[in-house]
């Protein structure tokens, strides 16, 4: 069997799984809407309109940018079997750092824009990096240390934005509006769709490339498959852990920077975490499985579900929590992936005809 043929045959059912998950979720959602006395067609139409109509696409793109970034923040360490659930903390760390640079460092846009972005990425990356030695030296699982570090990080930024960095006289906990030089340039005619999208897409491309076409990507996969094998092969698991977590945190920090450098151009407490970008990103990454190139598709889906559900609530009065329910169902139906994987493995073995 040719390698290509094999890949096609093995790949097809794998790609069908996410579609299946979405279909089942759509059916469940329709059932829920019927139970709530809403025509599911109208409900879904409202949901899509809420996200994708010309008038709403601008916001949807903002959501997509953030969710895509957060899905990368989860997916990168997941390649080596580490789960980063501390996205919220890394997101706000990036946001507050970018805001601080914008507010306290004078300079022209040409200087300030990259500086803010880099500051955000550094802050997010640094926070996430803390979990690497905690894991490789102290044996605290990344999934738990990222989570435990997130709450204090959110609390700390919350403190900063309420007191030292607060806008004078504002009753809302927020920083002053960032200077114009720190506003990400928006696409013509848009206000939320800005250079942030380009940055995140660039990061995506780099990730896909590194994953598939560089020794580092290979090493990360090896470490994810078997730590003992990686150590035996001379790979530095601590360094890979640090690298993937730093990269993940940097992407989350980038998302935070992009959010504060977009409308309304300030760090508002809660604004970064309340929309739930982190878990939407986790869900998108899980849906994409180990294929970074699928992330834009799954992130778009979860953007529609989360941004669109607000439109659905506005237009047909279905509680927006339905969006969460649908996301959950998509993730749960992914359990099917296991069945599909088994099926694929069985076919592979059949093809092998295995005899030693």
């Amino acid at each position, binding site marked *: 069997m040719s390698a290509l043929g094999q890949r096609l045959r093995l790949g097809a059912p794998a790609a069908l799984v996410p579609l299946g998950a979405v279909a089942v979720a759509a059916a469940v959602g329709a059932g829920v809407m019927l139970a709530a006395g809403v025509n599911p067609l109208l409900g879904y139409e409202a949901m899509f309109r809420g996200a994708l109509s010309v008038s709403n696409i601008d916001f949807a793109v903002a959501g997509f940018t953030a969710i895509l970034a957060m899905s990368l923040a989860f997916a990168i360490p997941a390649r080596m079997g580490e789960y980063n659930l501390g996205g919220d903390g890394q997101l706000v760390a990036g946001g507050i750092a970018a805001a601080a640079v914008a507010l306290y460092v004078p300079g022209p846009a040409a200087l300030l824009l990259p500086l803010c972005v880099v500051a955000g990425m550094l802050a997010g990356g640094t926070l996430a990096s803390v979990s690497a030695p905690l894991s490789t030296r102290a044996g605290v699982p990344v999934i738990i240390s990222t989570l435990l570090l997130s709450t204090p990080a959110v609390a700390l930024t919350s403190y900063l934005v309420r007191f030292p960095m607060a806008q004078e006289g504002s009753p809302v906990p927020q920083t002053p509006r960032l200077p114009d030089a720190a506003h990400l340039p928006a696409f013509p005619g848009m206000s939320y769709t800005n250079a942030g999208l380009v940055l995140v897409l660039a990061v995506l491309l780099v990730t896909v490339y590194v994953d598939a076409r560089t020794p580092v990507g290979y090493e990360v996969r090896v470490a994810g498959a078997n730590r003992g094998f990686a150590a035996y092969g001379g790979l530095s698991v601590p360094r890979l852990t640090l690298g993937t977590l730093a990269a993940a945190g940097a992407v989350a920090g980038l998302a935070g920077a992009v959010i504060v450098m977009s409308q309304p151009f300030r760090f508002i407490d809660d604004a970064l975490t309340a929309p739930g970008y982190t878990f939407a990103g986790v869900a998108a990454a899980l849906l994409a499985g180990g294929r970074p190139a699928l992330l834009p598709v799954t992130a778009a889906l979860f953007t529609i579900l989360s941004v669109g559900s607000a439109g659905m609530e506005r237009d047909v009065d279905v509680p927006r929590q339905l969006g969460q329910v649908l996301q959950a169902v998509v993730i749960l139906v992914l359990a099917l992936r296991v069945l599909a994987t088994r099926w694929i493995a069985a076919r592979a*073995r059949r093809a092998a005809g295995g005899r030693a």
Partner: protein
Amino acid sequence: MTGSTAVGSAAGGAPPAAELRGITKRFGPVLAVDGVDLALERGTVHAVVGENGAGKSTLMSVLYGLHRPDAGQVLRDGREVRLGSPLDAIAAGLGMVHQHFRLFGSLTVAENVVYRAEPARFGVLDRRAAQERVAELSARIGLDVDPTARVDTLPLGVRQRVEILKALHRRAEVLILDEPTAVLTPGEVDSLFVVVRRMAEQGTTVALVTHKVREVLEVTDRVTVLRDGVVTARLTTAQTTAGEIVEAMIGRGLVPAVNPRGAVRGDPVLEVDGLRMPAAPGASRVQDVSLRVSAGEVVGIAGVSGNGQRELVEAVVGLRRPESGGVRLHGRDLAGLGVRERRRLGIAYVPEDRQGMGTAASLSVADNLALGHHRTPPIGRRGRLSPRALRAQAAELVRRLGVKTAGVAVPVSSLSGGNAQKVVLARELHHEAPLLVVEQPTQGVDVGAGEEIHRLLLDVRSRGGAVLLVSYEITELRALADRVLVMLDGAVTAELDAAEATEEVLGAAMVQAGRAGSPAGSASGGGER
């Protein structure tokens, strides 16, 4: 020691203790076992042998209720039994000891023995009764086991006794041993066989799966040979020869690979000087070990497992940092260098633990073959990795070493043990590193494949490579090594030339200071804490 008193087959007419009739088992498209008949006469020891993947484990799993056969019957004392699960098998008086022990490390010996068949009052465990039961059973077959010891503090040989006690506690009359000796030291093997013979004398029927023809000859009464899922021979041990058994197993005679010796020895490649490492829980100490391996030389390390060999090897390849002492490669001090640097300088390494270390089971054959070569051309070039070159190189290696696989894209988990081992060897031999460190290269590998692997190692020697070979098998060391060093409690206690290294001398050197089977406290890191 061998107790070769032939126990005659059961009186005519009495049904076999256990019998398999026409057993067929498929895994998907793989026909693992194909219409096999096997009769185990009461009170006999019955060998089941065959190549890797011949279907031995599958057949035994059917007998133990782990697999349900697609066709065929299982009979106990002449009556058909339906074995839906191991529970049914246990109820029918069957017991099984797996190659990889299935023990709970954190539990005590007594808890392991009575697990799932506990003496209890109102659901509350009766620990006293459990311990007494263990004491009673071990006395019966002449074993010495402390019922209150945590299992993970015990040497492998003792752990295996616990496995046997488990079966006896369940009143097993038919005991299946799947490759019981693969991880045992020679001394441990001897004492196992004493126990096996004693059990047979007491009426227990034993089915023994093994790759070692010598063991077959030493301890069994009957032999069944499997090949590709069918029986190719049924033999009576007393009337057969090693050659006959091997012929039936692999379809040809075996020409053992043997070191031609005497070839020119080159410059020293590996020099180890005064290496020391402290003992730690779970790790043995290494005491002042010095050794030298020259180009074109195979140096064997003999010894009972757990006497510091693993620690020594890990210090050489860079996985473990010595407390003091030096390691030099071609005269260059390797202190402070990690695995990667050492590999680059020319150390290849075939580890003992091929599942935990030597391969990543879920990754493809190609990915497994690339590790360590992924940053050098043709695969890696200026920070980039060429998936095409990676696949091409893998295909080439698979072809060259004759790895049986459906392709380089399938996961290593779909390969048989022998073929997985070849993948490891292929990768490590590929770059013709000046130094090859090999541990237990043929463990669990069938004789045919084992012979091929031996040839590959000797090829390394003949092209001028240096080989450091750690093995627990004396025959392997005698076949391959130019010199043999014996390790005991972390120290090199003897150095023998190939000519001097007879089985008797080596065996004696390996167990000098202590009784085999409990290789000093070092194996378990000082016993209980």
